[in-house]
């Protein structure tokens, strides 16, 4: 029953063809399970997957328990809410007070966090910060008034329970009626599943951090590069990586070597299908509920009009593809032209994909694209604007074989965008002095500072690299998506309708760096894991600028609980209101926070394995 797909790899006798488990087609496979396992299964059999049941109203009961699932041919216990995976979709109304009772039928403590929802901190659901968690057998009553509308989600904040199935969608209907018109409305919740015990997976990464990376540079790759570009270029391409002991294919900690990628709890072979009638306009509410996977989402043959991000409406922008990390949501409108269209969500490391179909009736399929080729991280990902500037300034320089060169060269396909990108970088680098002199006279906080200030704790064993000249532009779609011939959404394309929450500028500026040591598999802020950190204090009522600089080679989706993160440009102009902001390698971004919610809040990387490793801070608003 295990379906295998061989990656379309033109390469080689050197690398074994990597296989990616597409999973089982359906859930009704109890007959294939040995009797002793069957006996242990609830009378209802396997956990229902696919589109989740919908719960609405102001009084909701949720029960957390372990229920059996089978995604790969192996029976496993998932942690589920009301026995479904994903958990029920909660359809709520803005302005209403909701009461949600959560009963824990697990042998261990649990919790539910309402991701992106503004509420009193005691209701936020983070054990040890908001409350004590929910002990086995106990019921916790959450009560809060919905102050917002849009697409959100909820998940466990205890142990690895989110990885094992505890996630569901929240749709909050606007008080004054929906402004986004669509004939149909589907939640498309992406996640990742492993048959392994996630704690064991984590322990393996502590021993060998590239355990699940089967795309490492090989001798074969080297000789291919030699034959393509000569020995000097092939050596040069590897020099920096090898000196720094870093891996250019370190795109995801966990790959299809352990993950099966799910769309609405359904494997690629299972093919979750959303039905439509020809001519309809469909709203797809994409939620990345994966524990550790960035997805690149597209629907071949259709453009997607992004109308909402993290629950907040944005000026519509039409794209072919978008990348999003765990925690982020995008609502898009599509108007299918054919009878069937594939929703294709490949993992950032190109080891596998989640897949579903929009079709006029069940059973139809459209072709499924091949996974894109793996692209090595570039100098820009490693060194920030330095690489870009250098290449930008010397576009004709021979013998440069860095991937960022392609950046410029293939820019032709895309109009002037990538070029402007580089120019932008150059301008910042070259004129930062002017900027600071200017702004000093007026308001020193009008623009985020560009002077890099590393923490004194970034020079020890916890940190494997520091970026001295970060990238500050927001218009880079990221590694593997640059100049791929498709229009890919970037942060620069997002513009929240209605502007910022507050016209005030920031009263002060905080700078924190995202840090890690891949070899040791440690992740932190400012080189300090959670256990050795102190909270970040915001004064109640202040508007503050937070600068996040990524001193690692991975993209981190940074989620601050309880408070909006209002992303701004390097010029200090408001861009978009988010609850989860992806920060690319060697990138420096900034956002403003209205510290209007008293209490203690979690702030962390939403790659769960990074969070567990310690890329986690407490925020105190008092």
């Amino acid at each position, binding site marked *: 029953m295990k379906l295998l797909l061989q990656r379309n790899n033109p390469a080689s006798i*050197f*690398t*074994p063809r990597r296989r990616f488990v597409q999973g089982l087609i359906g859930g009704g496979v109890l007959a294939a399970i040995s009797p002793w396992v069957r006996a242990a299964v609830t009378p209802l059999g396997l956990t229902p997957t696919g589109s989740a049941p919908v719960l609405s109203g102001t009084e909701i009961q949720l029960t957390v328990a372990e229920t059996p699932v089978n995604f790969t041919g192996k029976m496993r216990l998932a942690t589920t809410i009301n026995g479904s995976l994903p958990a029920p979709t909660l359809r709520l109304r803005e302005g209403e007070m909701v009461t949600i009772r959560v009963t824990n039928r697990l042998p261990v403590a649990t919790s539910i966090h309402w991701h992106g929802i503004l509420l009193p*901190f005691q209701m936020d659901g*983070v*054990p*040890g*910060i908001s*409350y004590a*968690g929910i002990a086995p057998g106990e019921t916790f009553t959450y009560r809060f008034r919905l102050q917002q509308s849009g697409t959100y989600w909820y998940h466990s904040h205890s142990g690895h329970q989110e990885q094992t199935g505890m996630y569901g969608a929240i749709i909050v209907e606007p008080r004054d009626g929906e402004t986004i018109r669509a004939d149909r409305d589907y939640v498309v919740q992406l996640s990742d599943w492993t048959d392994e015990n996630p704690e064991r997976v984590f*322990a*393996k990464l*502590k*021993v060998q951090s590239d355990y699940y990376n089967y795309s490492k540079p*090989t*001798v*074969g790759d080297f000789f291919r590069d030699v034959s393509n570009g000569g020995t000097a270029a092939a050596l040069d391409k590897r*020099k*920096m990586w*090898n*000196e*720094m*002991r870093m891996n250019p294919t370190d795109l995801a900690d966990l790959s299809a070597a352990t993950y099966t990628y799910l769309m609405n709890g359904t494997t690629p072979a299972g093919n979750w299908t959303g039905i439509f009638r020809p001519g309809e306009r469909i709203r797809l509410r994409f939620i990345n509920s994966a524990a550790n996977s960035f997805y690149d989402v597209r629907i071949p043959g259709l453009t997607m009009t992004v109308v909402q991000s993290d629950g907040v409406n944005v000026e519509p922008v039409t794209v072919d593809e978008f990348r999003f990390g765990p925690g982020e949501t995008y609502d898009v409108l599509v108007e299918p032209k054919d009878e069937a269209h594939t929703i294709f969500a490949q993992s950032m490391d190109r080891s596998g994909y989640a897949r579903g179909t929009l079709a006029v009736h069940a059973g139809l399929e459209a072709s499924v694209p091949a996974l894109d080729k793996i692209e090595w991280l570039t100098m820009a990902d490693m060194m920030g604007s*330095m*690489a870009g500037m250098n290449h930008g300034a010397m576009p004709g320089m021979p013998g440069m074989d860095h991937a960022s060169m392609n950046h410029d060269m293939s820019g032709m396909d895309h109009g002037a965008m990538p070029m402007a990108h580089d120019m932008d970088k150059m301008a910042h680098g070259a004129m930062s002095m002017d900027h600071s002199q200017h702004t000093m006279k007026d308001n020193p906080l009008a623009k985020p500072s560009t002077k890099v*200030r*590393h*923490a*004194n704790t*970034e*020079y*020890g*064993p*916890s*940190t*494997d*690299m520091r970026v*001295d*000249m970060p990238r500050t532009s927001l218009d880079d779609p990221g590694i593997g998506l640059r100049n791929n011939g498709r229009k890919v959404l970037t942060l620069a394309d997002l513009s929240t309708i209605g502007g910022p929450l507050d016209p005030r500028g920031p009263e002060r500026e*905080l*700078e*924190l760096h995202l840090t890690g040591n891949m*070899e*040791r598999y*440690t992740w932190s802020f*400012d080189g*300090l*894991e*959670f*256990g*050795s950190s*102190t*909270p970040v*204090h915001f004064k109640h009522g202040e508007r503050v600028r937070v600068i996040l600089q990524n001193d690692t080679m991975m993209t981190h989706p940074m989620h601050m609980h309880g408070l909006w993160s209002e992303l701004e440009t390097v010029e200090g102009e408001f861009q978009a209101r988010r609850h989860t902001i992806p920060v690319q390698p060697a990138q420096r971004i900034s956002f403003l926070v209205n510290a209007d919610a*008293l209490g203690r809040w979690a702030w962390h990387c939403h790659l769960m394995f990074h969070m567990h*490793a310690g890329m*986690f801070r*407490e925020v*105190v608003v*008092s």
Partner: protein
Amino acid sequence: MSGFGHKGVKICKTLIALVAIAGFQPVWAQSGQTMAAMDHGEMNQQGGSAPADARDPHAYADGNTLESGEYAQSGPRQLRLADEHNFGSLLVDRLEHIKTNDGANSTAYDLQAWFGRDYDRLVIKAEGDYTKGKLQEARSELLWGHAVANYWDAQLGVRHDSGVGPNRSWLAFGIQGLAPYWFEVDATAYLGENGRSALRVATEYELLLTQRLILQPRAEFNFYGKRDVVRNIGSGLSDGALGLRLRYEFSRQIAPYIGVERVEKFGQTADMARDAGERAGETRWVAGLRFWF
């Protein structure tokens, strides 16, 4: 330690130099400079030491801690992430059958285990070989490992030698980590009774022929500060091994291998071997299993 001779001093100096070369400042200064040479002026992206005006990572706390301050949960801190948990692993890097050209057979093991946290851990190292069911030579170490730089741990502890001849005990101090270009390096200096001193340096490299087929060159050298006749060890460079093992990773954790290794005794140690009618060097064929859990 009264008889700590000048050879011992020399070996310690060698060790310090080695530590400096392999582990500390010069390594990343070098990588930083190389990058600088490639692109721009001053830059130093790895390691180094914090400048005086580096940011204080606690500057934003305003007196709050995880346990205290407004809105903190009462009682002992409940939220503890993996940085405050212990992990552990046992790697059997070599468990192999050895056959020499003249037909002698033996079995060797080389393992390393650790237990603890990211930056502080208990480390056990053991290496030895059996011939005809009899332990010939074994080295067992119990160390405390402490992270001193991004890719380097310093280790401090004891070593015990057993096998043919009298047992020996040593104090051990060394470094273990990853040098630029991905060389695994393990260098330890030892001080024993009666002024004995020793230095052991081992390095491994992994060349990925494919994602699962891996060629592993390995080198090891032992130095002794003082002659130890009853254990057939002379002073100076005593022995070394250069090996090449080809393994196939059925999984990351289980990989059978085959290989060839040249072992050589040097100087006084070689003389002693020859006097005893043994060869000073030999080529060995090995087949074994590498695994960890």
